[in-house]
């Protein structure tokens, strides 16, 4: 069946079985591979996108449910002139990603949180940021969210150094 919706402000129409998860339509039909497959059961958040501005795990959302709605993916966060979203900039400044695979989803979750509450406090960050990261980038994710919302000045390297005898 043909299903129409918008992705990153561009109208699209795809031919897909209605039960196909949005994730696979984005990745395989629309070649938007920034949205990742991690678990297929909405447990890890790697596939997070915004649907009408709300955070959704696209691996478990049938594409038939998004007909007529507006999808934003990681590729659509930057502004028309190519300037990265403040959260993406904070992610670079804080050197958050390691393997990077979960980071599209983390950034989509963080931008949705900031959109919802403005300047999230620690407890709100704890509650909202449930996406999994195996590399353990959580401390830098936390700092980048605080920095993106003007609650921290992030000096990238917080490790300290000392001399010692060999």
């Amino acid at each position, binding site marked *: 069946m043909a299903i129409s919706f918008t992705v990153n402000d561009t109208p699209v129409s795809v031919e897909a079985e209605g039960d196909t998860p949005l994730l696979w339509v984005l990745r395989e039909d629309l070649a938007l591979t920034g949205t990742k497959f991690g678990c297929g059961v909405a447990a890890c958040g790697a596939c997070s996108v915004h649907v009408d501005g709300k955070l959704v795990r696209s691996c478990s959302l049938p594409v038939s449910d998004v007909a007529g709605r507006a999808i934003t993916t990681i590729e659509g966060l930057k502004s028309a002139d190519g300037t990265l979203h403040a959260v993406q900039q904070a992610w*670079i400044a804080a*050197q958050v990603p390691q393997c*990077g695979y979960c980071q599209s989803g983390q950034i989509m979750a963080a931008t949705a949180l900031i959109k919802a509450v403005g300047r999230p406090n620690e407890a709100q960050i704890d509650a909202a940021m449930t996406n999994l990261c195996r590399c353990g980038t959580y401390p830098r994710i936390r700092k980048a969210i605080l920095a993106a919302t003007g609650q921290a000045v992030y000096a990238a390297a917080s490790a300290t*150094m000392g001399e010692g005898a060999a």
Partner: protein
Amino acid sequence: MADNPTPHLAEDTANTPAKPKRKGVKRRAFLVGGALLVGGGAFGLYLAENSTRSRAKALTETDGAHNFLTWMKIAEDDTVTVYSPHIDFGQGTHTALGQMLADELDADWAKVVVEQAPADSAFANTALVKGFMAELSGMPGVVNALPAAVIGMLTRSQNLQITGGSSAVRFTGQAGMRVVGAAVRLALIEEAAARMKVPASELVAANSTISHPATNRSLRYGELAQGAAKRSLTSSPKLKDPKDFKLIGAGLPRADIPSKVDGSAIYGIDFALPDMRVATIAAAPVRGGKLVSVDEAPAMAIKGVEQVVKLDDAVIVVAKGYWQAAKGLAALSPEFSDGGHAGMSTAAIYAAQDELRTSAKPSNTAGSGDVDAAFKAAGNKLITANYRVPFLHHAMMEPFAITGHFKDGKLHLWGGLQDPLGARDRAAKAAGLKMDDVVFHPMIMGGGFGRRFPGVTEILDQIALLAKQLPFPVKLIWSREEEVRHGTYRPQSSAALSAVLGADGKIAAWRSDYVQGDNAEAEAGFIYDVPATSRRHFEYTSNQIDGPWRSVNSTQIGFYNESFMDELAAAAGEDPYRFRRKHLPAGSRYVAVLDEVAARAAWDSALPDGHRRGIAIVESFGTIVAEVVEVMMLPDGRPKVLKAFAVVDCGTVVNPLNAEAQIAGGLIMGLSAAMGEAITLEKGAVVESNFTDYPLITLADAPAEVDVHFINSGAKMGGIGEPGVPPASPALANAIAAASGKRIRTLPIMAQITA
């Protein structure tokens, strides 16, 4: 520079009788296998042979640039391209290796690009070989213990392009990148001296330019490259004194990060070709089982499904897209045999291990002194404890995905693996092709942690067999369920520890009897001064394939030893930090690391009610790490980690920004495993299926900040990717014991608390 390798190693090992074949090919085995291939060439191993050099030149001098020693090239616009034989899966290796070469080269960092070396034997990593030979030279026992499969590898080609063992910076960087950078710098200076007709001693190299201050003349590296590339290079250039480092030690940002925040980075699973199909797979639930039969019709009835392919031990559905393939696979009811492993279970494994420890002879014994005499001596106090740790899944966030296309007799593969050359070799064997007929295109990896070594990646066999019989390209994607259930896990292992305390309150003798597939001594040594120790390995393998899991054996051995040290401290009525300290050599790096972490964590300061700290110190991959974890016990009995501290002595830190991320990430991965991770077996099959029942730590449960401190001791460089993991689980268990009185001896912790 690393120590000289021992040229006799190859002969000694070649004469070793073949041992019975063991399941799984371990990472260390690969390394030794590679080492033997070049044994005898003690000097200038990085100076590739002529044929190799010309091949590397042909592969890289496609743009008028000039290749040096296969490791780097300089273009006419001064761009220096460094070829990394290691994969960068986010650990920052490419940046660090570039820093090391560029520092010695006196190159302008803004004009340095680091690229993945082609998966070609011309780029096999000889510096890595040299480093591991040096590390192993004092341990002939390790080499002699190699399984027959590895001895067989020695006769094969020089497939060494591995990323593992926390080896990139300390071996490739130290013995390769720095030496090449320094040697090429000398050649550039010689070329400049000849052109300017001045003595080389009057020239100064800086920022990719050679200048002659006396006459105010200068030549750019790009101008000098062609001539310099024809000059012979010294194999032992003088390296910089650390005080002269400009790039080594700098927290330079990683080049790959922008592409990982805007969604543009293309991982293996993202790769696509025109006409490509997507496939997914279900292998026998019991490892070792075979496919008995499957009715293909239910899958073929799903729209988009094109083909069902049967392998010896798996069934694959090929479709237009992943969702159709997954639906098709779900519609099938394949019958698999259990390979005779139906009796295998988590409980049965622990029971067999307990039995083995009391009835069998150890496969390996380390330690010295008369332990038995000390155990019998009057007045000594005996303490014993048994520990158990489960299989652990790597849980790389990107499930396995490799694209294959068999065309005109060549099998092309696209994917992310920790050893591209080894991947070619394995795929070639599976497909019955020559290695030259397999082309591997390395892609970005969504995590690895030891899961992506060719020796443990049966997906290579699967994609090779699948692609070879299809006329179009195909991407094989493992579901998360397949990933969880068909891992090559950190082994389930157990240990019985015992020690006696003397009248002086010190440990008089120590015995640890541990059971698992691998002898752990090669990478998890014993750091304490104890007059008599006996560390005995009892070999046990289940039907699972043991795989290297970030820090390999150091996680379980670290948990055993460091938990037990706390139990001994308690028995001695001593503070755990001070008890450790008095068993470490006075004035040693261990004491410096331990003292520093205690100071940073304010070890002696009072904490609120219910808050307690735990401490642990482990040396692995040449790096000493001590960690302190502060916890509070929640009303439901769960521990909440509030703070974490890590102090690290890896000799010299190349990039503190990345090193901090590696240590903090390793600590968090260690906490995650300790808290809730376990792969369990029932009737030979894995019970867990996804992140729903294999829980990883979340942001809320991880410490908000990890305080990481490096001691630049200048000692021989150690690894950084793995050593952050091992101290985390014992530090957490020790903190829980302090806070609640409950001693955790079996992991994961949550299973003990809810039990």
